[in-house]
């Protein structure tokens, strides 16, 4: 593989690094042959002509090429202005301390590289080292912000030229990290390369208005304007839930009706609205569980409050705060005792942990994970289960946001211990898990050939883990269940498993936790899980 120096990022070339599937980490079994990996769809000449595409063989941002040197210089100046703000207390109190500590103490020991699933899956591509983008950014910081210019600059900080090539490649490179923070977990100093990627994204979004369309315009902006990134307004979402209730009632033999805007309910349940459109069994299963247990609960039809997503947590503090405030405001209006978050990892982390220092006064309403609620209902016997109904191999994908970033590890395992007699762990799991490859917005990003990159690089390690978890039972006649209690992870797993025909070849189906619980509830008609690819 071509070696790339840190300073090469500023030198114009057709591509800084090339992706060849022969270099990628081999997958297990009959996927080991590189030819079993589909061809990477090349970017067309037209795309390369129109957009900045000189980092690797894909693009996440669709960053238009500047038309003149003046325009390039203006963008570079904007970037520099954004960097100055990123290192100011007023503009970035939110992350300044962790950012500065990470900027100033890396000893470049490369421990982080071995922890990174993207670096490993790529076969050790030098630009995917977690420290690569950090080192580029660190050199720019030392030279242009800290003022280590002058004669000793390169001696102290290393070579790095600030030009449009550097800036445009850095923008793309900030979107080659899932922000899973596995690298940070292993850093002996405590340096957080994922945080640095996050902060670079903020410069582009908050200062230059540059972010992937899927997570900004079609994501957080749409959510704030219409109520959901899916585009569903309040009427549409209610209609859809009503339809799901009818379908689920017929399927389970229970009479299910989701309560909306019920003042004084104990619980406000917030789903990732993607579930409602793509995996309707999941919100249906929640309704079955909550109604069967006799919980006092409701959903809200306020703007943004029926969609738990908060994409801002990946790229923009202000979009993040806007959505978190909408979520809390809806709960305040309803007077609920707590918000329970549905199966969405980043929604969990955004509202429970990160927003903890944004929501003040009456907006600081307790937030709880649905995994905790589920375990309470099962362990207390408020819902009755018969594990024999789940007599098939089950493994668990740990969403990074739930485990490594929130410490919610045990409840989901206790649940599976009760309802899945053939449960087995992936290796590694819990807080040491690997990202599904869709983290930090990638699961919803498929523009150009980014879907190929997700399936071939960022999702590769997860696919290896899934296949290994079911080793010895990969015969497609044995139906197997990959439990992924996170909507974004499911989106990624759907694309990943489909890319390699895993359902047809190995009989592995993915879905959530709620579905698996309802599938074994004794007062529900058997056969809740539909063993069909979706």
């Amino acid at each position, binding site marked *: 593989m071509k070696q790339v120096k840190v300073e090469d990022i500023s030198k114009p070339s057709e591509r800084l690094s090339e992706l060849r599937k022969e270099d990628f980490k081999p997958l297990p079994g009959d996927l080991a042959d590189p030819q079993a990996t589909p061809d990477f769809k090349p970017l067309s000449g037209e795309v390369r002509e129109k957009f900045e595409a000189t980092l690797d063989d894909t693009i996440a941002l669709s960053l238009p090429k500047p038309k003149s040197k003046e325009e390039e210089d203006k963008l570079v100046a904007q970037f520099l202005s954004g960097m100055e703000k990123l290192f100011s207390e007023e503009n970035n109190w939110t992350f300044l301390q962790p950012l500065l*500590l990470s900027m100033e103490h890396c000893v470049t020991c490369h421990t982080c590289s071995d922890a990174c699933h993207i670096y490993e899956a790529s076969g050790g591509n030098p630009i995917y080292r977690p420290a690569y983008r950090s080192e580029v950014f660190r050199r720019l910081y030392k030279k242009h912000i800290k003022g280590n210019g002058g004669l000793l600059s390169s001696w102290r900080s290393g070579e790095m030229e600030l030009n449009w090539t550097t800036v445009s490649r850095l923008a793309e490179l900030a979107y080659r990290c899932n922000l899973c923070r596995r690298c940070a977990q292993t850093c*002996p100093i405590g340096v957080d390369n994922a945080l640095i990627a996050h902060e670079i994204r903020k410069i582009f979004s*908050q200062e230059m208005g540059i972010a992937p369309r899927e997570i900004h315009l079609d994501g957080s902006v749409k959510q704030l304007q219409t109520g959901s990134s899916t585009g569903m307004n309040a009427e549409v979402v209610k209609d859809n839930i009503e339809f799901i209730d009818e379908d689920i009632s017929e399927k389970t033999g229970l009479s299910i009706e989701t309560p909306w805007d019920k003042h004084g309910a104990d619980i406000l349940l917030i789903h990732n609205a993607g579930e409602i459109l793509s995996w309707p069994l999941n919100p249906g299963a929640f309704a079955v569980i909550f109604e069967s247990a006799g919980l006092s609960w409701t959903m809200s039809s306020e703007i943004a409050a029926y969609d738990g997503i908060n994409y801002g947590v990946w790229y923009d503090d202000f979009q993040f705060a806007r959505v978190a405030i909408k979520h809390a405001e809806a709960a305040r209006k309803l007077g609920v005792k707590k918000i329970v978050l549905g199966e969405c990892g980043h929604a969990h982390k955004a509202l429970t942990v990160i927003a903890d220092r944004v929501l003040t006064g009456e907006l600081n309403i307790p937030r*709880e994970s649905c995994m905790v609620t589920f375990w309470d209902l099962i362990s207390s016997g408020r819902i009755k289960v018969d594990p024999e109904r789940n007599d098939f191999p089950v493994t668990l994908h740990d969403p990074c946001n739930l485990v490594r970033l929130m410490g919610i590890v045990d409840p989901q395992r206790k649940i599976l211990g009760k309802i899945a007699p053939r449960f087995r762990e992936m290796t590694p799991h819990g807080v040491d898990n690997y990202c599904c490859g869709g983290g930090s917005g990638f699961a919803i990003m498929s523009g150009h050939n980014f879907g190929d990159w997700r399936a071939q690089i960022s999702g590769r390690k997860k696919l290896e883990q899934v296949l290994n978890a079911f080793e010895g039972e990969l015969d497609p006649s044995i139906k197997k269940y990959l439990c992924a209690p996170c909507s974004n992870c499911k989106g990624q797993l759907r694309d990943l498993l489909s890319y390699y025909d895993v359902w047809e070849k190995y009989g592995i189906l993915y879905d959530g936790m709620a579905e698996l619980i309802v599938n074994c509830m004794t007062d529900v008609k058997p056969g809740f899980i539909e063993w069909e690819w979706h």
Partner: protein
Amino acid sequence: MSLIVLVTYVSAAVFIVAVVSRFVKYARLPMHLRWELYPVAHEKGRAKYGGSYLEELDWWTKPRESSLFGELKVMIPEILLLAGVREHNKSHWLRSFPFHFGLYLLGGVVGLLLVGAVLETAGIAVSRDESLLGRVVYDATYVVGWMGLVLGLVGSIALLARRLFNTAYRAYTKKVDYFNLAFFVVTFVVALAAHAVEDPYFVQLRSYVGSLVTADFGFTAGALLTSEVILASLLVAYIPLTHMSHFFTKWFMYHGIRWSDEPAQRGGKIEGRVQQLLKQPVSWSAPHIRGDGKKNWVDVATSDVMEGT
């Protein structure tokens, strides 16, 4: 008047000022959003698998159980044995551990020399032929001193070699990194030579530390020992001015970030600080923010996303 005593005083002063000012710099930065990373070592009963209080039903109604012992169980092996590097990057640990442990031992030697100097000032001879206490201090200084110097030299050469000959490491190594490691190597070589030739039992070095304690500027020594003291003093002053200050800033990395999981309470101290921070002016320029340096965080976060565009 001896220069080396003065050099050591100035170096110690630089060290203290650099450490304190860096510490204050980080401590005075605004409170950040929560960004913890599990396992959090003080989570009583849960740290072993990485769990948190968020696993509890209605966690906000229950007392939080924090364990200092849990933190110490992680911190002590981390500091003394570099447990994290050992677990995640064994080949680097084989180089880094002798270097760091050598430095710890030399830190211990400074302590032993101080104890010895104080004992001698108090009339208790530090020697193999004298009292038990004097003998223990004498022998310990000898053993720990030589071990520290040898381990430090082996480690620093191994780290320098890795940076010179390993492609991945070389690509990230700045000239200052080579200088830093070379500084250590030269200091260790000179120190080893000094003790091999001029002061094998650290007797003169103890006298020198005694002269520091009593502010005796008349201390003189041979060329090698003088060089050792000057180099070591300069190194002590230099370390906190560089990224090697991680020896104490790591405290912030762990306690202030990775393990900082305290939830905000209504009307609590954290909430009060957040309310102040939300009043900070915003000047980010993107169209969905439109910071003008007057609007504050609350103004922007509660404004319509497309207002004015």
